[in-house]
């Protein structure tokens, strides 16, 4: 958007009494040139760390450990060895990230779908069904957004491991999950923690649908479930996409919840947990860390770049409209 400020510069020139509009034009062009140049330089600086990681991940181990990645341009030596090692290697030190990659997928997909569906239903009820105490329920869910998930971690873990007993009566037995079954705990935790924001975001969209539409459908005898399925769902697809991307990035990139509820063993650890562990115990194995980090980055990057439009829209709706 080339608007305001450059022309303002020309305007000030006029009030100064300088007749030469050419000078103004030159200055304007210079101004926008400088701005372009500076913003490109900053963008490049911003990208250098990631770029360095990518270049390093493709260099042979000896090279990474002894010379800076910037020397790769004068002395190019590239290999996929690091990726092979870190993904498929079987030795304990190599990472075995292919397994973690599958863990990440298995954790993320249900953790996106469940809150999406539940929040959608709840947001519809809060926006378009009249019942007593509706505003209070909405305010309560809205307020829950501010509870940090740290507040729930210790008791929730206990809830999974020992169940619930009220006055000696077992209301809910321990889940007693082993190995890959622990994914269910992670799904549960992520779903609970995501719901307040999800309801809030989707309510923002759903409550703005035209009321006439609902009214007309009601007059035609459509029930709430029917309106929800045939009218509301198709109309809020962009909002659903926005939240799905949010939640996908959040869950895929999450460390804390996975660390606690996935059990921390390699069997169930997602990429983030595995990488954090490698960074701690093998902090100098840069050939593995760089390739591993890139493996974990690539999926969210693709999702993000291809669906950026929805993401930004969701971001603005979630943060600015309030």
């Amino acid at each position, binding site marked *: *958007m080339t*608007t305001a*400020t*450059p022309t*303002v510069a020309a*305007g*000030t020139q*006029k009030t100064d009494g300088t007749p030469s509009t050419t000078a103004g034009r030159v200055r304007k062009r210079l*101004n*926008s040139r400088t*701005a372009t140049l500076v*913003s490109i330089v900053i963008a490049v600086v*911003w*990208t250098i760390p*990631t770029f360095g*990681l990518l270049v390093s991940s493709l260099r042979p181990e000896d090279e990474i*450990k*002894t010379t800076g990645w910037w020397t790769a341009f004068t002395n190019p030596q590239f290999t996929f060895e690091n990726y092979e090692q870190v993904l498929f290697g079987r030795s304990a030190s190599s990472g075995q990230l*292919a*397994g973690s990659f*599958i863990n990440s997928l*298995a954790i993320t*997909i*249900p953790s996106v779908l469940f809150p999406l*569906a539940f929040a959608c*239903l709840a947001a519809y009820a*809060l926006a378009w*069904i009249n*019942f007593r105490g509706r505003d209070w*329920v909405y305010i309560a869910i809205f307020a829950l957004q501010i509870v*940090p998930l*740290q507040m*729930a971690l*210790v*008791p929730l873990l206990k809830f999974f491991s020992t169940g619930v007993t009220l006055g000696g009566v077992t209301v809910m037995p321990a889940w007693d999950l082993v190995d*890959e079954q622990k994914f269910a705990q992670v799904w*549960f*935790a992520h*779903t*609970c923690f995501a719901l*307040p924001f999800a309801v809030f975001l989707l309510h923002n969209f759903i409550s703005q649908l035209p009321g006439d539409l609902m009214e007309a459908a009601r007059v035609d005898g459509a*029930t709430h479930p029917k309106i929800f399925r045939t009218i509301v769902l198709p109309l809020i697809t962009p909002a659903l996409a926005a939240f799905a991307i949010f939640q996908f990035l959040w869950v*895929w990139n999450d*460390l*804390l919840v996975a660390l*606690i509820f996935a059990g921390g063993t390699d069997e*169930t650890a997602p990429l*983030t947990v595995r*990488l*954090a562990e490698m960074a*701690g115990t093998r902090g100098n194995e840069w050939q593995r860390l*760089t390739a591993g*980090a890139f493996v*974990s*980055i690539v999926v969210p*990057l693709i*999702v993000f770049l291809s669906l950026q439009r929805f993401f930004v829209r969701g971001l*603005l709706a979630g*943060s600015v409209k*309030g």
Partner: protein
Amino acid sequence: MEFDFADEQPKLLMLMYGLVAFVLVVGGLLLLLDVVPAWFARRREAQLVAASTGGAPLPRRPRQREGLFALFFLLPTLLLLTVGLIVPAIRTLLLSLMNGSSTEWVGLRNYGFLFSDDAMLRVLINTLVWVLLVPLVATGFGLIYAVLVDKARFEAVAKSLIFLPMAISFVGASIIWKFVYAYRGEGDQIGLLNQIVVSLGGEPKQWLLESPLNTLLLIVIMVWIQAGFAMVVLSAAIKAIPGDIVEAARLDGVSPWQMFWQITMPSIRPALIVVMVTLTIATLKVFDIVRTSTNGNYDTSVIASEMYNQAFRYGQNGQGSALAVLLFILVIPVVIYQIRNLRQQREG
């Protein structure tokens, strides 16, 4: 030595179970909501028919079942929030008043510990530094960049590059920056920062071991990630400034500087506040960066990472819970400030 796909099958099976459960729960709920009202409607019809033919008393008008519908729509959400968030939060509050293994009540001793122990005071100070610096620097940078890029060519590409770190996990970002900060005792440096220092004639350092500098270097990571968020929101706000206001100012002959402070800043104030508040809350809860980069060692620990260590590594549930509660208490004033602002905005 090869990767064995068969080992992964139980996990994929578990994923399948999860998806089946999803279809059953959500599909079942929708079906229930469809079938039950239809059944009620049919019964009422039958009653009406019976009434008109057999002279039976007319059935009463059906009560409003709106509430029942709402209950079913809200059921999964309310149930999960109660079990997964409300009850655990209350229990954490109680646990914070008990000892490490949650066997006896100790009153406020855990909170006393937070504000008297030297290591804990360090944690609180670090958190304060994070919360003061990250929102300010990230928002400031985002704002400057949004203004700069607003009249630049390649705007979309430049914005994407700044925004990109948002997609990278905190863990990934920490590894990226750990590599920038990397140190070698002898020979060529492999970390960019030390290379720059060396080429300027300085001595290479183990950056992440030097307190308090290391906390600042971790803050750089957070700013690097979050500046894109600030930039996108503020850029949208700048573009939403009505054209005629800008036009009027231009006719009055204001300088770019005046334009920025008297037109742009007041117009985007609401967005500015939202960004600051969001970043403040995110910074308060920062955990991944500290955990991945230093594991909270070398005086870099913050509340969230200390909470994890206390509760899940040292088994000190009481102190861990007290830290969680402290986090909660610190978030509240920030949120109240935002709500008050939103209300003023709506009234104004």
